[in-house]
């Protein structure tokens, strides 16, 4: 109807706004996809050997992922933690060589395509490269 005639300018503006809205929704969807993607982290406190080096297990260590619950790992413990999102922060509290408590905090990224990771705490504390690795459940 005549009172709803849309002039060229308005039309272009609307097309742009709508396109932007759809784009926004897509970006939002992508953000939600990566942000909500769940991963399983296996926290491992075992002696392992990597590239010829041996990382010894700790007697006791406290690990926290993001703002989650603090997990206390004793010798040979393996704990499963579910997290969502790609960017994660790991906080490890352990008794240092000098007897004092030491805290190491580190940010790391998870790949969307990998559902499960194995984190070796001894390797982490030692600052080794391969402290986090994708994990394939064998069954």
């Amino acid at each position, binding site marked *: 109807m005549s009172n709803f005639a849309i002039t060229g300018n308005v039309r272009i503006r609307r097309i742009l706004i709508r396109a932007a809205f759809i784009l926004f929704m897509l970006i*939002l969807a992508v953000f*939600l996809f990566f942000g*909500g993607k769940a991963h399983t982290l296996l926290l491992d406190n075992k002696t392992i050997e990597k590239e010829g080096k041996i990382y010894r297990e700790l007697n006791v260590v406290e690990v926290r992922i993001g703002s989650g619950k603090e997990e206390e790992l004793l010798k040979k413990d393996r704990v499963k933690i579910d997290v*969502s999102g790609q960017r994660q922060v790991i906080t490890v509290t352990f008794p240092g060589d000098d007897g004092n408590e030491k805290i190491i905090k580190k940010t790391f990224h998870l790949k969307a395509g990998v*559902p499960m990771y194995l984190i070796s705490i001894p390797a982490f504390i030692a600052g080794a490269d391969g402290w986090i690795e994708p994990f394939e459940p064998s069954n």
Partner: protein
Amino acid sequence: MLKNDKDNVIKFLETNLVPILFVIIIAFALPLSGFSVRYLFNEIIVRLVRNLFLVLALLLPIMAGMGLNFGMVLGAMAGEIGLIFITDWNITGLHGMFLAMILSIPLSILLGWMCGKILNRAKGREMVTSYILGFFMNGVYQLVVLYGMGSVIPIASDSIVLSRGYGIRNAVNLTGIRQSLDKLLPLKIGTTLIPVATFALIAVLCVFIIWFRRTKLGQDMRAIGQDMAVAEASGIDVARTRIISIIISTVLAGFGMVIYLQNIGTMNTYNSHEQVGMFSIAALLVGGASVNRAKIGNAILGVVLFHLMFVISPMAGKNLIGQAQLGEYFRVFVSYGVISISLVLYAIRKQRDKARAGIALADAQEVRD
């Protein structure tokens, strides 16, 4: 004016017959069930959170004169498909829930558009047509979900695919998003947990509905609801507007389904949507709505009354006759019975209105004699 008062009372009873009946049933069954007030209050909150959004999704097509949108199950299916995907992709929490909603939108729009198109070809028979359409699309849904998913549509997660390698399992566990919205802003009153965030979302929808009624499109829908021919003559694109109303309803039903299932936490892949359709419509009618008139208040009252009945009847049946089964059948009977009564009352009222003009003329003639 005494006659007038009496007329008003009769009219009130007539338009509110179903809610009154329900209050009576509940008043009778409530003491029998032996539930505590606290428990019931808790239940009502849970049911409101679960169902209200879905029930509200029915309002717009009623405004546009298309009756009860039995086609809302289409939206519910779209919501379920969104949930299947996020479960497969392992997206959790609020992220997952909102992603499921976003995924359901294009599907809902497509299904709603199709539904609207079909209903435009069956004017005057919208309800029965949308009802059958729901069944029909249920078949298509099964085709896609039971045979297409895992074979044509890639589904990676073993936990939701049937052991034969394709098709989604009967029950899908939604632990990842379970109550993610409900627990976002919890508020504890006594022992009852009030999910503030979900209620806020429902409130947003209510505001949207109220606001929508005041838009040009809302006005057009109201006009079409009253008289399609007059609306058409004034230049309103009736067919298109009706389709839009169904699309909005379908999209909202999709959202509602996601909210509903995040509260429950498991999805009954092949039955949830059918049930949701019937319970939502029954609840709305219990709240005093009719085929051509429904308000937000009807939805709220309806959910409360209907689900209260739902909660107490098995227990009441058990305590009364010693059989819980009886109560279960009773609530199924009441759900269908309510819809029947409402449809019958509406049809009778419509015919009486038609006859009223004639009665007026007859009165005029007889008085003169």
